[in-house]
Structures are given as structure tokens and as C-alpha cells.
């Protein structure tokens, strides 16, 4: 009884091996041929790569590349030197110093980005409460000398509004600047007359 069962098992195993070998051979063969065919056919597909730098790729507006400092719609510097970008920066590559104009506007006396450290994460743009610091689709920033990757405010400041066209921080903020006194910002009532008894 035992002997009979063993013989049956052996026969069953031989059949299994044969089946697997056969299907493997079949699959491999068809796959090889299929691959060869696909590679061959790819020769007639339109290329995904472009001949950079002769041909420039289309960069999406929200691509995170070279950082700029923008101006508000009135052409004034948007940066108010609040330091939030520097605080958000994970590699600590932004340094600035607050100063104040005679008009009462805050601005950075210097604004420095060490692009050799920058990882283009965009946290600075997210942190910026005035839309001043923005990442642009420009990525061509390679330099032969590392020192040249340190950009100052003169290098960063552009003459436009960048991606956000309408926002002007001082029109919203309560702080008075020359030309916009107390109560003249959006959604503000005229200053209170503390000597008045009226409700």
C-alpha cells in the first residue's frame, strides 16, 4: 500500500516539472520577442527629451527654482523683513536685517541667500506673509565658483510682482506708512477721536 502511494507521487512530480518548464519556455520566448518588437517600434516614437540648451523646455509656473524678491503693484519692495522665510528655511541659508524707511515701511537692509545651500524646498515662499519671496521656474544657476552662489538683495529683487499680481501688504495691514494713514487700510474705520463722547 505504502509502496503504491510513493510511485504515484513520483509520477505526479515529474508531470509538474514538465508543465512548469514548458510554460517558462513559452513565456520567456514570447516576452523576448515582444520586447524586441517594442524596442524596435520605439525607434519610430517622438522623443521625450529636448535638445537642451539649444531647445528650452516648458517650465510650469509653480516649479520651484531660483528664488526672487518681488515688488508690490506700486513698485515698492514687498519684503518687510519679518524674518519668517529665514526661520522656515531648513538649511538656514537666508539671512537678512530689518531696517525702516522714513515712510515707516520695513525693508531688509540686506537680504542674502546662499544658493549653494538652498534645496529649493519652497518653505520660504510658503512662510512669506507678503508674497515677496517667490520661487521661479528658472533653474540655470550653476556657477564655476561657489562664492558666486551667494546672492544679495540686488541680485534677488526683480522689478515686477512675480506670480501674485495684486497683493499689497500695506493696503491690508494696520500699520501707517506715508501716504496711507491710520484707518485708510482695507476694511478699516477712520481713527477714533478719544475726546469725543459720541458712541
Amino acid at each position, binding site marked *: 500500500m505504502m509502496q503504491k502511494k510513493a510511485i504515484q507521487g513520483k509520477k505526479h512530480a515529474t508531470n509538474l516539472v514538465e508543465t512548469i518548464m514548458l510554460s517558462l519556455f513559452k513565456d520567456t520566448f514570447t516576452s523576448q520577442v515582444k520586447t524586441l518588437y517594442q524596442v524596435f517600434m520605439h525607434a519610430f516614437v517622438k522623443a521625450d527629451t529636448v535638445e537642451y540648451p539649444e531647445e528650452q523646455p516648458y517650465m510650469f509656473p509653480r516649479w520651484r527654482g531660483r528664488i526672487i524678491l518681488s515688488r508690490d503693484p506700486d513698485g515698492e519692495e514687498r519684503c*518687510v*523683513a*519679518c*524674518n*519668517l522665510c*529665514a*526661520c522656515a*528655511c531648513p*538649511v*538656514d*541659508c*537666508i*539671512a*537678512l*536685517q*530689518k531696517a*525702516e524707511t522714513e515712510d515707516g515701511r*520695513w525693508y531688509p537692509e540686506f537680504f*542674502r*541667500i*546662499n544658493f*549653494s*545651500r538652498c534645496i529649493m524646498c519652497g518653505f520660504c515662499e510658503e512662510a512669506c*506673509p*507678503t508674497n515677496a519671496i517667490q520661487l521661479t521656474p528658472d533653474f540655470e544657476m550653476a556657477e564655476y565658483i*561657489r*562664492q558666486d*552662489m*551667494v546672492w*544679495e538683495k540686488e541680485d534677488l529683487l526683480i522689478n515686477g510682482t512675480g506670480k501674485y499680481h495684486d497683493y499689497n*501688504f500695506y493696503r*491690508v*495691514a*494696520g*500699520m*501707517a506708512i506715508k501716504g496711507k494713514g*491710520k*484707518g485708510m*487700510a482695507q*476694511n*478699516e*474705520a*477712520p*481713527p*477714533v477721536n*478719544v*475726546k*469725543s463722547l459720541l*458712541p
Partner: protein
Amino acid sequence: MAKIVIDGKTYEVNPANNLLQECLSQGLDLPYFCWHPCMGSVGACRQCAVKQFRNAEDTKGALVMACMTPANDGAIISIEDPQAQKFRAQVIESLMISHPHDCPVCEEGGECHLQDMTQMSGHNYRRYDKKKVTHNNQYLGPFINHEMNRCITCYRCVRFYDDYAGGTDLSAQASHHHVYFGRHEEGVLESEFSGNLVEVCPTGVFTDKVFSEHYSRKWDLQTAPSVCVGCAVGCNTTPGERYGSLRRIVNRYNSEVNGYFLCDRGRFGFEFVNSDERIREAQHVVNGSSSPLTDAQVKSVFAELKSAQAIGIGSPRASNEANYALRCLVGEENFYAGMSAAEFDCVQLHIQLARDPAFHIPSVREIEQADAVLILGEDVTNVAPRIALALRQSVRNKAKELAAACKIPQWQDAAVRELAQRQNSPLCVLSPYATRLDDIASDCVIDSYAVLTNVAYAIASAIAPAAPEAKPARERAELVQRVAAQLLSARRPLIIAGSSGGAVMLRAAANIAKALQGSRHSPVDLCILAQEVNSVGLGMLAGSGQNLSAALARIARGAESRAIVLENDLFLRAEHGAVAAAIDKLEQLVVVDHIATATTQRADYLVPSTAFSEHEATYINYEGRAQLSYQVNRCHSQAQPAWRWLHTQSDMHVANLVDRCAAEAAGFAGLQAVLPDTSQFIAGMKIPRQSHRYSGRTAMKANLNVHEPKQAVDTESPMAFSMEGIPSQKNASILGAAWAPQWNSNQSISKFQAEVNGELKQGSVGALLLQKQAASGGFFSHDLLARPASNDGLQLAIAYQIFGSDELSARSPAIRERMTAPYISLSPADARSRGLAQGDEVAIADTKFTATVCIRSRMQDGTAALYCGANEIDQFSLPTQVELSKTGFNSARGMRGLIVSDLHEEGY
């Protein structure tokens, strides 16, 4: 002790406190605005609402304001109850309705209590779309910026400024949503404590103007625990540095010394550190032309001086380490205290009295507990301003007593004030001119020092007949009896004196305290004010009689031809002529200092030392409390700590020097207790001076070199010049800046206190060095000042100004704006008889010095008080009795910036 249940957990609490205090003391987060640990509760902001349940079965509960509810035994409350949480969120939403959209351009941003509390209560979107209320700002002087739009009407500013600090020129105006906090008209805030508004205001209505001029966020400042060098109180501060310059000073809590508040001299007087007048390189000056010296050359100069006999003149504004190193270099017999003979006598007497078991030198907190105060001849507001603020609290003890009798808790601020009206504990001021404390004084005696001393001796003999007798003028006899009775009946009387009145006045003060002690059989509080940050430390190091006059006399005799002057302008301490003559006689004058003075201009060798924020050092305050001040920033010049120049050993550290000073210098035993216990530090790691949010590390110096330099290593202290290490969450005495999760403002200090407004978790900070000696001295004999020989001249007293009398802070631009030109105070009768009008310029005696006439209605006839400006008048060259001659009317100099209560209006 009572037991209360907060959110299902039982806590042991002090039933004398309110629920908010106890929640914070237990380390729980509960938002609040109007409550302040020093100012009690008024329940104005409704922010600290919690749910209180009547008993364990009560599930409904009722909302109560935690700050207005006592922590009674068995109270069951919930902070996390949804209704309480929603209520708090709605309160903050309504407070924020008119808050301007200007956090990015607000100096408070990042350390704003309002930001913290808004985050904590979860409000993040302004649903209200109607117009915001706006306000015009005011010019409030060189210290404070005003931005009224940010106000949330918590009333903390006026409660501090008017109720706590006794100011009169800041008030709440208008009503309902128009409430305005400002002056009746634009102008300088007069209080000497106006700077505290910056920290008291939970948002950015009052911000630090000096800081704003070179602003950095709190997280960007490199900070370390420091000690104020403005006066002898030794308030604890946290200076902040960025990009190599010192940016600001904020208060650092010390329960025994300054508590939550600083004076404006301490807060705004630091800018001498950034001054152009700093000495940056060592120079050898020969016939007016100077040549630079290398470190090695400077060392060899000192090595030479060590072998040769040289005189060393120490300084009350230099640290113990610097003075001790100088004493080691020149030898004890050649070491002189750089103080005038009169002041040195006072300091020696000060130390002697502090060691006398009959007296107790009270800390600032203990001064607040006095219920009868006698001030003898000292203008406390201008000499030790923080103590004046403490005295303003001491007079409220009457109110607290009355409240206790009516079972009103002490934290019920409005109720306690309402109950007491204007009833104060007695405070008697004896002064040569009306002082800024006169508004709270029950009695004032304004007269010459000779008369004041007489009155003081008379008070002593009225208390104890054994004391030397003195006969006051008949009209003062009643006052003497009254003051004596007040002191005798007080629970904790306090006598305050200082060096302004001279050693005679100190002895009179000691006699009064001694007389009181005889009837009490316990030490009596005797507060003696020294002039400068380390006057007491220097007095302990110098031998008796080793004052500046002695040194000058020794040089004039030609006994010594070389001298080292340590961080001291000798022209401030003795008659100009005598100092100049002595310097001329010297062959070699070596001056170690960090700032240019009249003395450094005369130096043959000029050696740059570091200023207070650039080195680690210990200072000893008026009560003999040694305190350690850590280095905040590095000095990027040749300057080194003075002790390092003076010490010939090269491997010296502050810690070894402190140990050696404690072991070798008499009276300094126990100094090493101020050094931090480094064994407590986690994994032996250093404590960072920079916050975990410190920014710009890889960009701040990238303009110089894109390859960042290695972080500087601090070999002196357990603190690091970087973000590396672990900030101690338990020990606030060695903490870069107070910060706790969710608490970015200075209010986070409650997380480091064992109990709100109590001691820090690690206990009291500092080591009291002046140990009591066994025997107590007897009464001092009667040594009245000589009466004036004739009535021709005016009896002259020297007046002090908080802004100007301190040499270093007077270099700060903001302080300079508040300084006045030299003036001389006269009574109206004296001015009339001399044909002088308000604002006239007069020559004093026969000297070349001139001052502006300031006629004050409360001056005593026949006396004058002269303010010498920033050493514009040589006070040591003046006789005690002067005559004045008019040289012209000078409206330009005037008395700009002078704040006195009794300016005579007539004819002005």
C-alpha cells in the same frame, strides 16, 4: 494646603491663590491676558474661563473666570471642558476683531503673548467682516514705540504704569470699543520703568524702540543669562546679540532680586557695548603717537610690571575676577580701590554693617515686604531705581493688611485698592531735594545733609534712649517722634541709606536700626545702597584705607612710577587736578578698559578689555549677593577679558579663577557656589545660546566666505555659541532665553517657577557672601556734620540722575536723549535774592563750571543740589558751600528732559 481637582486629577494647592495661579503653577496651559503675577487679578479679559462643578455629582457645571475664583479646598474644575474651550475661543475671536493685519511688521511677533494665546485657544480665521476700529499713535519718547491698533484692552499697561510703578502720565481714555491707552498729549513717558510696558503688554502696543532700530526676532538672538551693570542692585537680564552687535536687554526673572521688572537705565543703557568709543586694539602711546601692540607684547608689559613694583587701581564697574587678577598681579599692599575716599569709607562701613548680626540687608523682594520705611539722604529712584519700584510696593502693605482683615484675597487687586483708597504704609524721606518717591511718602524732610543727619540721630535717640542724643529743630520734634513711633510699631521696618549722604548718614542709619533691634531682638532690615555694580566686591578686595586718594598721594610722593588702572575713569573719582598731576608724575600708566575715557587718553599703554556681555564674570550687589553673568557674544577684536590680560598664567579659566578667589581672598568664601553644577547637564552636553529656531546660520557670513566657519567653541562656560546642546528645562538660571512649548513670550517663565511669582525651580540664584560675624557693634557716636560757618553761601548737595549719572549707560544714544545738562536746584527765595530766574546759566563758586538754574519750590532756603552731568562738572573740586554768579540766560541747554514734581512755575 488645599486639594483641588482639575480635569479629574487631584492637585495640592495654596488656598490663598486663585485658580489661574494654581493652574499655571501646576504647569497646565490656560490662556490669560489681564492677570499678571505681580499685579493680581481684575477679571477684565475673560480669557481664563474654566468650568467649575459644585460637587462630584454635578455634571453641568458653570463657567467661572479662573483668575477671579479662589482655589478653595475641594474645588472641581475643568480646563478641557468643551464649553469652556469654546467660550475661550469666542473671547479671543472678539478680542481679535480689530487687530490689525501686521504681525510681520510688529516687533512683538514671535514672542507675543497674544499670538501664543490665540494659537492655544484655536482661533485662526476672522469671520467678522465689518470695519476695524483704528487709533492714532503717539510719540512716547526715545524708548517706546506706540502702535495702538494692536490693543486688546487688557488694561495691563495702566495697571503696571500707574498702579504698580506710580506713573502719572499714561491713562486709559475714552470708552467701549474706543478705549485708548496713551498720554494726554504726545511726549516722553516720564516713569523710570516705562520699558517694562514692552514686556507687560501682551501684544505689540508698546514695543522697544531701541531694539526696533536694529531689530531681530527673538529666536534669532544669541542670548545668555547676564547681570545688569547699571547700578548696585544687580538685576538679572537676558541680553541678545545678532550679527556681532548687542541688540536688546530683557528682564530675566530672579525672585529675590528684580522679579519681573527692570528700570529703563538697565534696559536701554547697553549700547555702549556697540559704541564707536570702544577700545579695539592695544596701543603703546609715545608722545601722542600710538603704535599697535601684539598680544605677546601686552603680556610682556604685564609680566614686567609683575616683577617691578606697580600700583594697581581697581574699579567698582569691573568684575571680581578682573579686580582679583589685578590684586594678584600687583600684590595686596599695592592694590587700591578706584573710589573716592568718601565713597570707599561708605563701602567699608557698608560691608561692616552687613556683617553685623544686628542688621539684615534685605533683598529687593524683602524690601517689598517692609511696612514702615525711612529713607536717609538717598535719591533711591536715581541711584538704585529697581529698589524705588520695590518701595512703591512696600507702601501697599497697609492696603494688604486692611484686605486681610476683611478677608479679601491679596490677588483681588481692584478690591484691595478700592478698600485702601490712598492709605499707605508709612514712608519717610529725608533728602536734600524733593525725590520721585515723595508722592507715596507720608513725611518728607528736605534740608541740607547737616540738618538731615541731625534729624536721623534724633530719630535713633527717640527710639532708644541709649542712642547718642541729638536735638532737632523745634518744628521737626513732632516729626521725629512720629517717625520713631511708626518704625517701632511696624512689623517689618526698613531703613535705607546710601553713600550720597556720606558715612555720617550711614552711621545714623545704623544707629536707628540698632535702636529698633534693641526692642525687637531680631535683625532689623537695613538697606545700604552702593553706587556701582561691583562697589561691594571691590570694597571686599581692597584693604582698609586703600582708596584712590591714598593711591594718588603715594604717586604724588614719587614712591611709585608705574600704575595699572583697571576699567576706571579716575577723573570721575577724584579732583581733576590731583588726578592729572599724579598721572604726569608717572613714568608708565597702563590702562585696561573697554571704552575711551579721560583716563585712557592719558595712558602710555592702552589695553582693550571686553564689555559685560563679552565675558563671563561675577559681580556682588548691594546685599553681598554674588551673581554670575555669562558671556553672551564674542568680541571680534583684540579685546580680552581684563583678568586674562592681568593673569600671567595662560591656562586660566573663569571657573578656576573663581575657585581661587573664593579660597584666597578674605570674605569671598562661597563664591564658587555661583558656578553651575555641570553634573546636572544631560549627557554632559552644553547649553545652547541660540534657540532651536536660530536662522541664517549658513548665510549670515556667506558674503565674506561661502565656506562657513566652524562654530566658535566656548572654553569658559557650559554654554555653547551655537544651537548645539540641550536647553535645560528645569534650571532657568542657565538658560539662553525663557521658552516653553506654546509659550514664546517672556510669560513662559512660569514654566520654570516652582510656583507662579515664586522661586525658580532650582531655588534662589546667587550666593550671599557677607557672612555675619559673631559680635555686634554698639551705637556709633554722635558725629554731626559741621554746621555752616556763615549764612552767605548755599549748602551744596550732589544730585543724581538715572539717565546720566552712570558712566557707561550715558554712552547709549537713547539714554543720551533723556539726559539733562548740569543743573543746580535752588529755592525760590534764594533765587530771588540772587536775581536768578528759571533757566539762567550760573557759574558755581569761583570755578569755571556752569550749570542751569532750576528753581524748585520745595528746596530748603540756603541749600542747593547740583547735578554734575556726565562728569561735566568736577564735583570734587567744589567747596561744600557755594555762591553763584549769573553768566547768562541759556534757553537751549535749559532743563530739557528733567522730570521733577516741584518745578517753580513763577516767572518761567
